[in-house]
């Protein structure tokens, strides 16, 4: 079977991914470009008797060396030489889209233009003469609609045809006399001195005139580029003298000039710009006063739906793991191996997998919001606030919002931020958003100490998280991420109806990565933590005699100034690093061991099984309340649960032995702010591709948590709260 290698190229938001998903379905592989944090999507499908291999190049506006995405794209075109490049074009936005097309033509790519979103173009009153456009460009132009099958067959036929008889059209482009003369000159020298280059010499000449750093480097590396580089300096001087501008600007002008010529001959525009539906929606959604309430409403709905659907599903996952643990424990009996499987693997990995339904649903809703074009509006609306308060763009607000659900999708969502510094800074503050895993911890402690004011206490913690995030961001912006705020420009794509397939694939891509990568790291560390809790051989799991217990005992004096110097509290903090809600189960275990406090004669196993179930109820209750938007006062009304852990007088007694109200509050503050959980650190590691940032996040959040808790506790003592 013949193979045809196709690359999809085009601006962002032109429907590239939609076409890619339509063609390849689930037969796709998502990875990263070697050594880059840019997503690489490959897939395959059969057409006629051909095996089509498709690669979805990152969406970009140009092929300069100024962004990683662009370098990746052009290196692929030059190095891998795909048989056909399908350039998807937004028909409603022809001129800007053709700028990339022209650059691919310069590169000698074997192109097919796929005109997408023709309906929207017609709505705008544009009439495109495809035949004329195709003739002027020398490239086949096919009208498609990526969301359905319109034009699909014709496009595929053309791809097959073009793959057999490539048409490279270097001669169509006109840059005006001045630019052309100089490129010809350069070309000649390049052909004489360094003829072995991959790319067409006319392209190299153009890139040199644009002072493209990557190409200059390549020329230097050949060792034969002295004459070329000298010539280019001369040309630059000439341009500066004659036009008072560099050659770069002249080339841009020439490209746009060429495109303007094309468009004026092949497109009929209405005299007056038509108001599209997209514009009408924007009049409301981006309105000066209505914009923010609408944004808040949409966010509130997102949470509402995520928790309403995700919590019960998470409960099932938790039940499934609890059942699995019990079954294994029952069939294998007590023992080292049982403890390894039940406490170590199931306890650790299961604890994190509970959040999978939540994450998938959140991703689904987000994908829908993103595909519809709303997220770009949200960035616009929030920019005003973010700018003033934090010095970040509105785009950074979206990951922070997600952080209230779970920091992992929040950190993944920072991918939409182009600026590396902004992206890192956002990743570093997202963990301060009080995620759903911290609620059970609050609920537990609040019930023991602050039952009269529980809503307010929990609300104060949420607020504290936001305030700390803002302060930390402001400090970082003035220190390690110093410098001007990154300039802000982004496209506002027209509203589009998201496709179910697209949104589901989108969700799966992100969710599956969480499952795979976070899963492996969490598994490894669960085993480590389990080992530390079980060793030396013969001790009670997680008791004071175990390694963890001993570590807790040794480290506990560190926390004494914060008001919680008991080893149990320290151990809970250590375990909480795995996943914050584990803090609760740790106290559960410790309570089970010191069972006399509750006066119950139940066996350890039964007690912990009860506790797991009740903790889950608390967590569901509390998070359900939180999103229902009824003021925080009503949050965590878990006392109605008869079996709830915090209702148990014995448990409360144990908690009250360990803490005073003041130290309990300081403890909650610490749990809120300290080291992000393992899954979060794993996500930071994956997104930054280095251990440096997760390590930094762990250290600095610990410092922040320590300082804030210290201030709360010592300040409280001074003010007379005992």
């Amino acid at each position, binding site marked *: 079977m013949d193979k045809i290698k196709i690359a999809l190229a085009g601006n962002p938001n032109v429907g590239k991914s939609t076409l890619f998903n339509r063609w390849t379905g689930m037969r796709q592989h998502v990875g990263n470009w070697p050594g880059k944090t840019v997503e690489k999507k490959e897939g395959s499908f059969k057409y006629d008797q051909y095996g089509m291999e498709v690669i979805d190049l990152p969406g970009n*506006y*140009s092929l*300069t060396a*100024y962004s990683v995405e662009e370098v990746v794209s052009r290196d692929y075109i030059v190095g891998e030489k795909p048989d056909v490049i399908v350039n998807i074009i*937004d028909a*409603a*936005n*022809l*001129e*800007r889209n053709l*700028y*990339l097309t022209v650059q691919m033509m310069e590169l000698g790519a074997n192109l097919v233009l796929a005109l997408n979103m023709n309906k929207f173009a017609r709505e*705008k009153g*544009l009439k495109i003469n495809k035949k004329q456009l195709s003739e002027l460009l020398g490239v086949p132009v096919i009208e498609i609609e990526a969301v359905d099958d319109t034009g699909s067959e014709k496009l595929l036929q053309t791809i097959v045809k073009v793959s057999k008889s490539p048409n490279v059209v270097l001669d169509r482009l006109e840059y005006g006399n001045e630019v052309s003369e100089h490129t010809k000159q350069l070309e000649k020298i390049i052909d004489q001195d360094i003829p072995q280059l991959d790319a067409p010499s006319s392209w190299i000449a153009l890139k040199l005139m644009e002072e493209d750093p990557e190409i200059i480097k390549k020329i230097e590396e050949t060792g034969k580029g002295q004459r070329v580089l000298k010539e280019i300096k001369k040309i630059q001087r000439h341009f500066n003298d004659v036009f008072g501008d560099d050659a770069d*600007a002249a080339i*841009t*002008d020439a490209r*746009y000039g060429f495109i303007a010529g094309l468009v004026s001959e092949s497109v009929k525009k209405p005299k007056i*710009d038509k108001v599209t539906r997209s*514009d009408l929606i*924007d009049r409301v959604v*981006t309105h*000066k006063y209505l914009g923010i309430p609408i944004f808040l409403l949409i966010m509130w709905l997102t949470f509402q739906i995520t928790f309403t659907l995700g919590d019960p599903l998470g409960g099932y996952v938790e039940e499934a793991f609890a059942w699995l643990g019990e079954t294994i424990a029952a069939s294998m009996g007590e023992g080292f191996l049982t403890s390894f499987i039940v406490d170590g693997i199931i306890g650790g990995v299961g604890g994190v997998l509970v959040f999978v339904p939540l994450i998938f649903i959140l991703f689904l809703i987000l994908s829908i919001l993103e595909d519809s074009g709303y997220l*770009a509006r949200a*960035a*616009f609306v929030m*920019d*005003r606030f973010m*700018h*003033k308060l934090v010095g970040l*763009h*509105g785009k950074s607000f979206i990951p922070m919002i997600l952080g209230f659900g779970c920091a992992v999708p929040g950190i993944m969502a920072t991918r939409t931020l182009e600026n590396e510094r902004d992206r890192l800074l956002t990743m570093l503050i997202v963990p301060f958003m009080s995620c759903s895993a911290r609620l059970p911890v609050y609920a537990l402690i609040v019930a023991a100490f602050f039952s009269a004011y529980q809503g307010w206490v929990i609300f104060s913690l949420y607020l504290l998280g936001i305030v700390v995030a803002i302060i930390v961001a402001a400090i970082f912006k003035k220190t390690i991420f110093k410098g001007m*705020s990154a*300039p*802000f*420009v*982004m*496209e*506002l*794509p*027209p509203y589009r109806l998201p496709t179910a397939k697209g949104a589901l694939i989108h969700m799966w891509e992100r969710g599956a990565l969480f499952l795979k990568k976070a899963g492996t790291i969490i598994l490894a560390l669960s085993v480590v933590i389990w080992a530390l809790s079980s060793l030396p051989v013969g001790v009670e799991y997680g008791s004071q005699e175990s390694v963890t217990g001993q570590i807790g005992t040794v480290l506990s004096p560190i926390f004494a100034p914060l008001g919680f110097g008991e080893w149990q509290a320290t151990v809970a903090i250590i375990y909480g690093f795995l996943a914050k809600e584990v803090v609760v189960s740790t106290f559960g275990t410790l309570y089970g061991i010191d069972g006399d406090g509750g006066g119950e004669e139940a066996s350890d196993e039964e007690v912990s099984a009860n506790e797991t179930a009740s903790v889950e109820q608390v967590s569901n209750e509390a998070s359900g309340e939180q999103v229902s938007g009824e003021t925080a006062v009503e949050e965590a009304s878990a006392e109605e649960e008869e079996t709830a852990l915090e209702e148990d007088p014995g448990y409360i007694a144990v908690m009250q032995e360990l803490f005073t109200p003041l130290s309990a509050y300081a403890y909650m503050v610490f749990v809120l702010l300290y080291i992000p959980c393992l899954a979060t650190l794993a996500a930071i590691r994956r997104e930054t591709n280095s251990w440096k940032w997760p390590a930094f996040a762990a250290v600095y959040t610990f410092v922040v948590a320590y300082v804030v808790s210290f201030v709360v506790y010592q300040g409280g003592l001074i003010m007379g709260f005992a």
Partner: protein
Amino acid sequence: MMSLAMATENENLKIVQVWHGGKFQKRLQEMGIYKDSQIKVIKNDIPGPLIVDVKGSRLIIGRGQAQKIMVEGE
């Protein structure tokens, strides 16, 4: 001549000068904002970023960045 940030909504303008350099200038160029190109402000609520129309596409641009783009009426 005035900065884009001062422009009134829905007025057809021509870019006279772009006081940005390096990478960001490139970015603006490839998105259609460069000397002699046409631009129209769709939304200009102070404070906050602007929405502009460039070659039929809608772009959000920060207010600070818009202040460095000089335009004149056509």
